[in-house]
């Protein structure tokens, strides 16, 4: 009886914890250089808080940093900045090419790019991504303590 009771309580605890994490948010590590200088400016590794609530209520604006599932590999997640929302026209330049490409973003899609131009695998290579792939919004760096800060949404010209 005692063992069964404990197992039951443990299962309930796991379920409650999982639900809270799925509803509010979790912590993730940022790998790679694609978002320099916002994340990982030196050799340190940043930990960020992912909040799932803004995605539910569709309150993602231009300039926010988001986490999405990579459209080319479903096991990977990517962290990028939203450059354009539905209805915008994004003008991008190809590498070693002066001609400009105008991309219209259809309804239900985002255009995302890394802050480190040229060293980022983003919408310039795979096109706009569907809103359903966006998992979370990133608003806080929580570790290391010296870099604790709220992230502002900014639009680079």
């Amino acid at each position, binding site marked *: 009886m005692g063992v069964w009771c404990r197992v039951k309580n443990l*299962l*309930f605890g*796991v*379920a*409650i914890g*999982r*639900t809270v994490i*799925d509803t509010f948010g979790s912590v993730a590590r940022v790998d790679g250089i694609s978002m320099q200088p916002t994340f990982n400016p030196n050799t340190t590794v940043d930990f960020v808080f992912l909040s799932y609530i803004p995605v539910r209520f569709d309150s993602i604006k231009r300039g926010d940093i988001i986490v*999405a*599932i*990579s*459209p*080319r*590999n*479903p*096991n990977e997640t990517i962290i990028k900045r939203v450059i354009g929302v539905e209805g915008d026209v994004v003008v991008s330049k190809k590498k070693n090419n002066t001609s400009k490409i105008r991309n219209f973003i*259809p*309804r*239900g*899609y985002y255009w995302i790019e890394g802050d480190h131009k040229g060293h980022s695998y983003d919408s310039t290579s795979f096109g706009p*991504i*569907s*809103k*359903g*792939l*966006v998992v979370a919004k990133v608003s806080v760096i929580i570790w290391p303590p010296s870099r604790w800060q709220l992230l502002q949404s900014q639009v680079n010209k």
Partner: protein
Amino acid sequence: MFKKVGSFVFTSFKYFCVAHCVTEHVADIFLCSGDSMEPSIHSGDLVIIQRFSKMIKNVDKGDVIIAKSPEEYNKFIMKRVKAVDGQMVRRGINYQVVPRGSVWLEGDNHTNSTDSWDFGPVPKGLIHGRVVCRIWPISHFSMNI
């Protein structure tokens, strides 16, 4: 009295959390509507889907799946997988190669279905689950759809 209400609320919260975990990570029930899958699934059928989670990620040609619609992220579509990454699809004179990490979805009812011929290949990250069996109406219970 107060204690009783509190314990009732806590118990229902506990079971709600368990239900959330089951529907999020194991299996879920869906009510189908629309006629895009007409010969195999009719409007108003109830199906059980296996969640396409981090653990189980195999999707094969011929499976019926539920995915988030690429155009409206809070709607779900139910289609059949025609091709997975690297394979080629063809209709008439049009043909396309499905890129890596994506699947090609088509409805069984070709004449009335909004599918990959309209919105292109669908990334695997949008897949919500795989249809396992139909449970309602009971007379049409079947495991292989």
